[in-house]
């Protein structure tokens, strides 16, 4: 059994010191890898990421993260990435990595993602430059996510996002703000490339469980949704499975 721990939207600030450490100390007994689904900080300041890095220090499991919109607010995303990576926490920016966990090769493709809405109620690449830029940003990230996933030749493939790829995990949010919470372009890219599980955050009032139109499970791991320090998702080890591969291609 390989076990994936994940949480998003920790919104760490300098007032958060120690608030997650007790739970994180138990993580190595519960999981083989720890994924952080963006909005790591309260308002995107470097001293806030330092507080979170202190909390994550010395955990003997691989730790990977994507950034969220909060990390971009004051324009310090670059120093935040440097600080995370300096502490051994890999930041996936429309990129992928492969880990060997308990004889199983696990590929993780990550992207912040962006908004735009969902089929039938979404923005279009049309009109003012600002509107085109909004939609094109999402489309570009979705294209890169597709490429990153497609190049993963691993037993298990995970997509780690901040924004939501489906509406399912937004249940509980006001429908008017769905276009600011995610985009069908992300879900479409994942369905076309294939994956075994998608993890995202961002939708604090959403629901944990969802599925893409292509049948890939989606989990919203925003801290306010899961109501605990992290969730754990498990997969059978390679030798235990009769059939390997992805849910959808």
């Amino acid at each position: 059994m390989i076990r994936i721990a994940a949480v998003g939207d920790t919104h760490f600030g300098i007032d958060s010191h120690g608030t997650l450490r007790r739970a994180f100390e138990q993580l190595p007994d519960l999981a083989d890898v720890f994924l952080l689904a963006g909005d790591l900080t309260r308002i995107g300041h470097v001293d806030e990421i330092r507080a979170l890095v202190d909390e994550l220090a010395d955990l003997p499991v691989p730790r990977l993260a994507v950034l969220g919109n909060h990390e971009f607010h004051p324009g310090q995303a670059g120093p935040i990435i440097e600080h995370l990576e300096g502490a051994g926490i890999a930041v996936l920016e429309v990129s992928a990595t492969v880990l060997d966990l308990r004889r199983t090769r696990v590929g993780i493709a990550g992207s912040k993602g962006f908004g735009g809405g969902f089929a039938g109620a979404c923005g279009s690449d049309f009109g003012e430059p600002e509107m085109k830029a909004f939609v094109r940003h999402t489309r570009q990230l979705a294209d890169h996510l597709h490429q990153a996933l497609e190049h993963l030749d691993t037993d298990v493939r995970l997509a780690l996002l901040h924004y939501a790829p489906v509406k399912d995990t937004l249940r509980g949010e006001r429908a008017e703000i769905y276009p600011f919470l995610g985009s069908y372009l992300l879900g479409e890219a994942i369905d076309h490339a294939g994956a075994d599980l998608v993890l995202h955050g961002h939708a604090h009032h959403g629901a944990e469980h969802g599925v893409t139109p292509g049948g890939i499970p989606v989990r919203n791991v925003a801290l306010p949704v899961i109501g605990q320090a992290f969730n754990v998702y498990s997969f059978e080890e390679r030798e235990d499975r009769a059939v390997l591969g992805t849910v959808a291609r």
Partner: protein
Amino acid sequence: MNRVPEPSDEPVQYVVAHVRDVLANDDRVGALDLGIKIVGQAVFLTGWVTTSERLHAAEDVVREVLPDHDVHNQLHVLPRDPPADAETVR
């Protein structure tokens, strides 16, 4: 300090929107998802925050921008326990 337009002159939905902007941009809070409801001179704050400091800071910010209102702080601090079990995906 960010102040909203004089509430007595402003439709309540605009006041709520201004308060939401202030809570999002104030370094003490930085939250975009708090519930804000104004009924007469009462402001109700609802939702979850990650620390008790932020719970009180949100109330302080609203008192600063709407000094003539009564603030009812119904925020909660999120639990941060480790999970008791795992979900088997496959």
